């Protein structure tokens, strides 16, 4: 297990290198002079020169890159142009809201997705199966800015069950459901097809014929085998959820990374944008590494390799 983990971490290094290079080169790839873009049309030549110096844009590119990486490794992502606050602190202030939302959405997606998918697989070709697959289709197709508003309309305005913009646990429910729904739909469809395949295999028939209870066959034997592709998709869905938080956080007025990123881009606050890109990239890489570890835990064959 440990060597596997180490190998996995080493494999992540080139990816992280690419991420840092991408975040760094954003300054230079955007058309126009980044300093002039940041300062706006009324900037004087002195302002431009001063900011260029402050950002170190007068030095050769490789030097700039190395200093960017070495500062980032020490947790220094630069200073925001708008607020004058360290970008790392600004990200730190907001990551809690996004992490809670993403984790809650993932929880809902796994719970609802795997449960409905299993139900549909067992009740194959029945009315239940058809209904679940229809719900899944709607869930995948509906954009979150729309489903979020519908949920607000039903559960907040009509039924009055959940607050819209208040914090706390009850305020987490609607955004988490909104964000988790499309992921739940994907997982339900995947679980259904994976489980159906497994349920047709010989060892399941053997278990049945040995007299093992039907629920135990599904829960203990079939589901464990069916879950491997599901876990892969869960890992990939994490990225989608983080991206989706941009919209959901705006709809539910949550102060998270997603909205922070949008505002940073709108305000052309390059240090903020760079910091967010780097941070999001690292999180994505880490989560994928974690998924591989979970893989190994579920399927012993993987760690043997």
């Amino acid at each position: 297990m440990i060597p596997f983990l180490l190998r996995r971490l080493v494999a992540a290094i080139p990816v992280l290198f690419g991420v840092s290079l991408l975040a760094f080169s954003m300054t230079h790839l955007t058309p126009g002079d980044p300093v002039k873009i940041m300062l706006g049309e009324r900037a004087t030549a002195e302002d431009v020169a001063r900011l260029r110096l402050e950002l170190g844009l007068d030095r050769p590119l490789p030097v700039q890159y190395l200093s960017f990486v070495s500062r980032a490794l020490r947790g220094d992502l630069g200073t925001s142009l708008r607020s004058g606050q360290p970008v790392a602190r600004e990200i730190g202030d907001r990551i809690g809201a996004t992490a809670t939302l993403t984790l809650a959405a993932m929880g809902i997606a796994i719970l609802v997705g795997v449960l409905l998918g299993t139900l549909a697989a067992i009740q194959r070709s029945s009315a239940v199966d058809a209904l679940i697959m229809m719900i899944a289709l709607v869930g995948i197709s509906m954009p979150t800015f729309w489903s979020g508003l519908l949920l607000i309309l039903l559960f907040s305005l009509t039924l009055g069950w959940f607050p819209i913009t208040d914090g706390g646990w009850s305020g987490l429910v609607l955004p988490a459901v909104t964000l988790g729904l499309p992921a739940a739909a994907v997982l339900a469809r995947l679980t259904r097809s994976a489980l159906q395949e497994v349920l047709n295999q010989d060892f399941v028939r053997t278990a049945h014929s040995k007299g093992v209870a039907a629920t135990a066959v599904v829960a203990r034997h079939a589901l464990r085998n069916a879950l491997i592709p599901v876990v892969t998709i869960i890992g990939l869905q994490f990225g989608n959820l983080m991206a989706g938080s941009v919209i959901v956080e705006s709809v539910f007025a949550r102060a998270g990374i997603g909205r922070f990123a949008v505002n940073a881009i709108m305000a052309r606050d390059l240090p903020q944008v760079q910091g967010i890109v780097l941070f999001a990239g690292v999180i994505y890489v880490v989560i994928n590494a974690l998924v591989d570890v979970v893989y190994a835990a579920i399927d012993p064959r993987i760690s043997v390799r």
Partner: protein
Amino acid sequence: MPTPFRNFFRSLLAALVFGSFAAAQSGQNTLTLAYGEEPDPLDPQRTSTAVTGLVMRYAGDTILTKDLTGAYADGLAESWAASEDGLTWTFRLKPDVTFHDGTPLDASAVRDSILRALDPATQSPIAGSLFAPVTDIEVVDARTFRIQLESSFAPFLDNLTDPRGAIVQAAAAVELGADFGRKPVMSGPWRVEAWESGERIVLVRNDDYAWGPSYTRTGAPRIERIVFRIVPEAATRAAAFEAGEAQVVMPFPVNDVPRFLDDARFEMVSFLRKGIARLMEMNVLVAPFDDVRVRRAMNHAIDASVMVDVVLEGRGVQAYGVLPPSIWGYWEGIEDYAPSYDPDAALALLAEAGWTPDASGTLRKDGAPLTFTLLSPPFDDATRSAQIVQQQLAGIGVDMKIETIEFGTLLELAQEGTHQANLIGYTYANPDIVHLWFHSSNIGTGLAHSHFDSPELDALIERSRVETDEAVRLEAYADIQRFVADQALWVPFYINDNYIATSASLEGEQVHPDGFLLLNDASLD
């Protein structure tokens, strides 16, 4: 643990625990105001956003204010006077004013605050330009100070009422550095208590407050807390309002207005935008608009009242000149003075200029059809207005093409002056905006996109700035409005209404003509 990670866990915890805590903490005597924008620093001298300006209306005090009729009134200063030449202004402060940290707000504190705004190191986007005409500030005694201007500049008084010109505790600003923008030390009826990034700004009542403007409650306000809840999505803002999570929503999304108009639980306050929302500028350097008769014909041929009905759905009024009725200096006579909708008059003027209809009705001069390209920014109301104009002009045989381009590019092209016409709009606090639109010094750099270089118009504009007598200034602005209408540099379209929604539980709020709610005397049921 490195700071970002420590913060991560701290804020993770905070998100879980504090959310419910904050919800429980609000309640009685807390006014929640849902606003669409995220603020940049809450330092009035380092901000460029409207939302920070709004917070400053409650947390800060300006040297002067405008009363509910829009006339200049007391602020921190109880009286003020100008010298004969308009270059020296003397202000007398109200007694015993203190900052939120208890230090006295006296004449030298005012001087320090203004000097900080002017200091290049502050990099002030707006406050710096508000005080730009100041050359010297002299502290006469603890309550009296004198401001020297480099030239007589009448709009200066208006600048003193801008919330970005609010007086800050300059020593605290030095001490706190960048953190001053998180928790500014000022002197207003409420003070900034907390700012949870991206989520809310909490203001708490300043119990020592006793220097409010004379046209409202001068003592400490009744409402204990004002919470600015940042809700970027317009539909969510409306929903949060309906669910009672916010008592004030501004700006209120126009689409949702009809839904709440007849609802007794809510009140809708509307006020006219301080500016012309949409207008067509014509470039006098380029044919066919180098001929004033063609420009006047455009004014006769376009019926802007249609746009009020269709684009604004009736929520606004038609514009007739360069200033709206909502800005001081508006000349009422412009409604009758400006060329009115009259297609026959348009055709007559065009015929005089040599444009006559051919067999199919297309206007031609020397065989060439009358055609031009209108640059339009990619905003929905601009697109719809442009289409209406296109249709109306087609009716008299003018072929107008619409080119929709990104707004920054549009400004660049309009400054260059090779274009024919463009759509644009503005919002501004005072009539000095005419300088930016028409003074020849703003050709190529400012907003003088008509490229009309006229010493006569320049002189009128300069007079409006130098005169300190208000009656004379009003006359100067009327002259400017007439002059621009005579030269038909614009076709003004319309001015939209802005909406603020308030819950019926809020009482005693006053709607200020500058587009915010004065809450000093307000209370919650």
